[in-house]
């Protein structure tokens, strides 16, 4: 029985793959496209991230512009008030 099993082991000894096999597989992995789902997921995620980034930048920019506008409005108004007070005090004199 043991001899027969040894015969089977001999018959089923590992075969050597073709010499080009390794290079062929490696080349194929370089050509291998990502699965469609992954490609879609990657593309969608990238697009969302870019869109979110652009939107965040845009919103922050608009807010900054509005803040600037408000700050300048107060500043100019207060300067006008100062001028008015100066003029009034000059006229009083």
């Amino acid at each position, binding site marked *: 029985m043991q001899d027969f099993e040894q*015969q089977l082991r001999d018959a089923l000894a590992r*075969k050597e793959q073709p010499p080009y096999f390794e290079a062929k*597989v490696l080349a194929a992995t370089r050509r291998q496209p990502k699965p469609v789902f992954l490609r879609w997921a990657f593309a969608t995620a990238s697009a969302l991230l870019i869109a979110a980034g652009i939107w965040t930048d845009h919103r922050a920019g608009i807010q900054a512009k509005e803040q600037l506008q408000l700050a300048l409005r107060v500043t100019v108004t207060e300067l006008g008030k100062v001028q008015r007070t100066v003029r009034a005090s000059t006229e009083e004199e």
Partner: protein
Amino acid sequence: MPTAGAATEANVECPPNMTFAELLRANQSMVFSLAYHFLRDRGAAEEVAQDVFLRLHGKLDDLADSRHVVFWLRKVTSHRCIDYARKRGSQFTIALDDTSEPSVASQPGDPLLNRRLQQLIAALPEKPRMVVVLRYQEDLTPEEISEVLEMPVRTVKSHLHRSLAMLREKIERSMGDIR
């Protein structure tokens, strides 16, 4: 019974965190041989082996350890071979021109007996055939084979017992008592 499990040997060959190229180099002979002994068609074996490694390439990040890769490779190769054989169906032919194919080491034993055994193994039904290949090419225990093929250990043992009896009977009939 196996003297030393091929799985154990493979573990030694595959330390953790190997690159894909290293895993390919370490396991290409095992994968190709499983496919070749099962399909007995060099072109088909090459096709299946390449497909298995391409799947491994896409799956590598999910496999926690290189040592799991060996188990994964055996499992995927086995199932892929069975699927391939089923799809091929009646087109299945046994290649008889394999005597010139080199083994990893020069093939031990009687070349004529080896060839006859290979032909007989190739004629086994798909699942018993894969059980025999995993048992005698990879030296896996019935328990390990049951994990790879996802079948009960009892079924593995049953396939082994019947296949061996049938192979022994046929080889004895065609070549005389091998003992």
